[in-house]
């Protein structure tokens, strides 16, 4: 009995803060406990996600029995502690006032021209705990202003209060420790070594956590006052991480985006792409429906375009629907329904990228329509993590941050792939070397010490690239059942997981229901209020689908959010589109497809519509429209009108679609197994490649500062290959279609692979080389 009581007692401590009795978990800091009872202690260096430094001294409080004031941000509460904040202690009040007065000594007080004015913790706290006037009459120290710490982040050193949040973020969270405090005393300043740029995918976070106006972004500087902005919570559309963001806009234009607080997902961070890549939302939009007449696209009214499209589709024979990764869950669900009900077709795929039948099987077996299983939090308690065909820093940066956080607490990460990347290094990962395309073999041949360590608390992360490595996904599936390790599929694009769950892929109805299963067909037919017999049979996906379009056996296409440049067989697709009888494109911006489409409908971007994205966890992340007055239609709205024009019913209301989808219980019937797929054993040098986080992606257009922070394009080879090629400065990689020549970088690359960025300046793999990941290329030193 006493033992039990004792255990309970050690878990919490009883304390008093400003006369209020509290019971808090052991180890709680004074500043956090005070927040819980609504007492705000001023702070600058304190940040709940960074380790305490107690440097700014703004949070000094009094503790009974302790002669000197103590920093609340670093003071751990102990049982019986009686704390007095500025509310009940004169000592604390005077100490805080003194620190605040000091903080303003060398601060320029240029609030009227400072971007932070209006949302500035220094301004606010100077008002709440500072003196009403200044006694300082001396000369303030100044610095030339501003300087770039990188292309996107600007630093006004004279405004800095040396809280070190930015430098601690860089070191502790991002792992890009190149931002540091330099010099000393009042000359102390933030800077980088040798004035090299602060190279980080997460650099924008330092702007957001800066408690003064010292760090600002090139894109937002001098654009607006915070109190003139309207803020709307949103979900990031750039990847499958599912970050909560805040969109701030003014007079119908987005001025900035900030990371918003979601402790389950992005905590308080975001990557630079999510934060800064929003110019595309406004730039170069398609403004009205267009129809092709005499070979030329011309503007048309909505009714005219609708009838034109309806007639064209009705006249077509075999049809296909291609949905890109930008679709929200609701839009993807509308495409899924539209294809099956209106077009009577199951030729459908959301994977606007390299894909495989093996992947489709894997997704049907493990992912489609499943509930949340592996979560971000699970990463923190995982025993081991194995990465397969997945480069978290580039392909899901928030997963990378959570991995890093866990690695710092002792998590072991293994990565299977052809390159031991910068990201792997930051995760102190164990590299399981595999030539590009040979991941499957590497997994089946895993060392017994690695396999032995995998258990039900381990996680296998599989990225989209695994689809390009024959046998990899079936090997992962096998490894999962062999060891009990849980499998998490992390697609790159925001819409993929939702589209999969919504059944926007041939063979799968919503909720992971096999279209070949009669019970599944019946369930869906009931919800859709149609005859199960009218549902189409299994259609085509991936390569087969593209081939069918190219060959003309499918002669009408509905295309949304597709960039042929993203597909290994994009040229083939484009040729098919060119020759197809009828092509309907639903797009935000013009593309190779709209240029060849019969009819083009402009659709809403994320700021103009509500909807949701399902992140890789399977977590639904809904968002509402920032611009409620926007007149643009969602994809679902256009499809609904199109259905009407074809005398069919399809509710295009986002909320109705979500409600209907949510009403579907998860599929309880049997799922297909993943067949064992043969490994390919390429002979020669294979191409290793993936998309860098910041690259030539179309959604990053119009933001030159962001683009300038991209990693430069290099061809990365092993030291052995570098020697073999005669230590050239440039190397040329040649594929089926052509060559790419880039400066060489020597790193840890498996001996028979060469790594190139997939879609970066001077390195567009599919269009320039005409081959993809894991395919054989030839490499030579020097230019072509």
């Amino acid at each position, binding site marked *: 009995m006493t033992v039990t009581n004792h255990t309970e007692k050690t878990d919490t401590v009883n304390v008093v803060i400003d006369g209020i009795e509290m019971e808090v978990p052991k180890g709680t800091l004074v500043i956090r406990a005070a927040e819980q009872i609504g007492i705000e202690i001023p702070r600058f260096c304190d940040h709940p996600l960074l380790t*305490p*430094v*107690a*440097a*700014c*001294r*703004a949070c*000094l409080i009094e503790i009974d029995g302790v*002669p*000197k*004031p103590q920093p609340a941000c*670093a003071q751990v509460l102990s049982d019986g502690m009686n704390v007095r904040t500025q509310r009940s202690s004169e000592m604390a009040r005077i*100490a805080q006032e*003194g*620190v605040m*007065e*000091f*903080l303003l*000594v*060398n601060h320029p007080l240029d609030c009227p021209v400072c971007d932070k004015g209006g949302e500035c913790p220094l301004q606010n706290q100077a008002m709440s705990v500072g003196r009403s006037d200044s*006694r*300082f009459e*001396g*000369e303030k*120290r100044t610095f030339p202003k501003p300087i770039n710490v990188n292309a996107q982040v600007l630093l006004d050193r004279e405004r800095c*209060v*040396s809280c070190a949040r930015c430098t601690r973020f860089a070191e502790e969270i991002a792992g890009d420790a190149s931002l*540091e*405090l330099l*010099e*000393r*005393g*009042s*000359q*102390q300043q933030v800077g980088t070594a040798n004035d090299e740029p602060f190279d980080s995918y997460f650099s924008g976070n330092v702007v957001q956590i800066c408690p003064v106006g010292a760090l600002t972004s090139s894109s937002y500087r001098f654009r607006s006052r915070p109190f003139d902005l309207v803020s709307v919570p949103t979900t990031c559309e750039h990847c499958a991480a599912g970050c909560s963001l805040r969109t701030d806009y003014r007079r119908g234009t987005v001025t900035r985006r900030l990371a918003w607080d979601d402790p389950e997902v992005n905590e308080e961070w975001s990557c630079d792409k999510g934060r800064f890549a929003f110019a595309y939302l406004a730039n170069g939009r398609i403004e009205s429906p267009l129809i092709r007449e005499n070979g030329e696209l011309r503007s048309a009214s909505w009714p005219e375009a609708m009838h034109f499209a309806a007639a064209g589709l009705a006249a077509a024979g075999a049809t296909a629907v291609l949905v890109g990764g930008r679709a929200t869950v609701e839009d993807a669900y509308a495409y899924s329904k539209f294809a099956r009900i209106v077009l009577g077709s199951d030729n459908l795929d959301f994977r606007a990228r390299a894909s495989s039948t093996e992947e489709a099987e894997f997704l049907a077996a493990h992912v489609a329509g499943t509930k949340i299983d592996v979560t971000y939090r699970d990463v923190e308690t995982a025993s081991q993590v194995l990465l397969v065909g997945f480069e978290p820093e580039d392909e899901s940066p928030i997963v990378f941050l959570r991995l890093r956080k866990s690695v710092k607490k002792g998590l072991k990460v293994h990565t299977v792939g052809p390159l031991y990347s910068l990201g792997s290094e930051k995760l102190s990962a164990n590299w399981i070397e595999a030539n590009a395309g040979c991941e499957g073999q590497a997994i089946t041949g895993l060392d017994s010490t690695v396999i032995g360590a995998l258990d039900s608390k381990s996680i296998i992360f599989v990225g989209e690239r695994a689809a390009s490595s024959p046998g990899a996904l079936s090997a992962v599936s096998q490894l999962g059942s062999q060891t009990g390790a849980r499998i998490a599929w992390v697609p790159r694009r925001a819409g993929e997981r939702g589209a999969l769950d919504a059944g926007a892929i041939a063979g799968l109805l919503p909720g992971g229901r096999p279209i070949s299963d009669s019970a599944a067909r019946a369930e869906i037919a009931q919800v859709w209020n149609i005859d199960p017999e009218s549902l189409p049979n299994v259609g085509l996906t991936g390569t087969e689908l593209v081939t069918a379009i190219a060959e003309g056996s499918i002669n009408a296409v509905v295309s949304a959010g597709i960039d042929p440049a993203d597909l290994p067989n994009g040229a083939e697709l484009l040729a098919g589109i060119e020759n197809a009888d009828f092509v309907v494109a639903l797009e935000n911006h013009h593309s190779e497809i709209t240029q060849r489409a019969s009819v083009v409908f402009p659709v809403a971007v994320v700021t103009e519509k509500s909807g949701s994205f399902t992140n890789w966890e399977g977590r639904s992340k809904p968002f509402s429209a920032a611009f409620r007055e926007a007149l643009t239609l969602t994809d679902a709205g256009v499809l609904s009108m199109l259905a009407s024009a074809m005398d069919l019913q399809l509710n295009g209301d986002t909320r109705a679609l979500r409600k209907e989808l949510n009403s579907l219980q998860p599929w309880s019937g049997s799922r297909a197994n993943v067949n064992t797929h043969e490994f390919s054993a390429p002979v020669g040098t294979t191409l290793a490649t993936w998309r860098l986080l910041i690259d030539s992606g179309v959604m990053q257009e119009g933001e030159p500062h962001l683009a300038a922070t991209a990693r430069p394009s290099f061809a990365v080879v092993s030291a052995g290959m570098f020697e073999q090629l005669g230590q050239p400065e440039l190397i040329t990689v040649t594929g089926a279609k052509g060559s790419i020549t880039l400066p060489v970088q020597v790193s840890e690359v498996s001996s028979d692979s060469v790594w190139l960025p997939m879609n970066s300046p001077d390195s567009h793999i599919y269009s320039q080389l005409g081959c993809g990941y894991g395919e054989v290329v030839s490499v030579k030193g020097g230019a072509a």
Partner: protein
Amino acid sequence: MKLTPVITEHWDDPALYTLDGYKSHGGYEALAKALKSDPDAIIATVKDSGLRGRGGAGFPTGLKWSFVPQNDGKPHYLVVNADESEPGACKDVPIMMANPHALIEGVIITSFAIRANHAFIYIRGEVPAAVRKVAFAVKQARDAGLIGKNIQGSGFDLEVTVHAGAGAYICGEETALLDSLEGYRGQPRLKPPFPAVAGLYSSPTVINNVETLANIPYIIDRGVEWFRQFGTEKSPGFKVFAVSGHVQRPGIYEAPLGITMRELLDFAGGMRPGAELKFWLPGGSSVPMLTADHLDLPLTYEAMAEAGSMLGTGTPMIFDQTVSVVKAVTRWLEFYKHESCGKCTPCREGTYWITGVLEKFEHGHGTAVEMETLNTLCGQIAGRSFCALGDAAATPYPAAIKYFSDEFTAATHTSADEQFDPIASYVFSGARAQ
């Protein structure tokens, strides 16, 4: 009271800095004795001796050693704080120059006691001569098998690394010193954890001053009773007093703790001819100044604290009537402003502000309001800064105003140089002082 040369006893021997020279005076006999005894017994002896840290804070040395957790499976380290940078302090450097082996013997015994197999000597980088002397002594000791594997057959291994600092006063703060030693920017660390638990490379670490460690061989060799015959109950032992300023013979005077400043002044030949003492500081610029009224107080940790000052490093600075207090305080604050590491707000901004105001006073442009402002500013730093550097910076002005407020009032209209001929205070212008 008499002088009691112990560490300084054989400084007239020019060969003392060599191993042979040191050994000829009984050096390394304490080590042989120590290696045959039990580490815990050594800790107990040092505890019993009551030896207090000679770096300024006066923390009981044996107690500090006993904080190191034993059998914790982690490596332990001894770090010697030889970054003597305090204005007015000049005792560790002379010890390292004249008698480096006393330090090294102390290092070996201490490492043995706290079970450290690696000791680091962090020496102020501005005195390369001392770095060379200590490095030479370490080499000689290593060549003689006093450092290295299985020292004198005891089974005890010790490596000693001599490291030169890069010129920052803050690196004399023990945790900043550890950061600097690890290759980081020298800034003080948040405590807890304390270095005894997680110090150098997050391992248990003892950080001791040079003079403290130089005491160790003598305590081990001659015993607790011998040591305690010097000094007082709370401040036992002897002290290497380094007297500087306007005295006839500035220099090192080793005497029991409890000796008075008046006695030390006599040893130093008194004030220079015709000069009278105006104010003095018992141990570096970081301790509050005292006046002639305090000359008969015993120089002990407790008596100095009672008088509102501190023994500090035990290196008295003596100033005569030619010195402007305003100017002296300004120079010190300029030093602290220059050396403030920048980590915490009160020290970084406070030293900047105070120095600016003091410079106004120095030029005769101060105001009565600013005298009060300076007082409150010092109050806003003391006890609120991250480490003791801020506290030190907040010390000179309040002490000066306590005894010499008239001078600051005069500085509201007359510059320090007009009040006090600067040439007169120079050491070489003794004649003019008359």
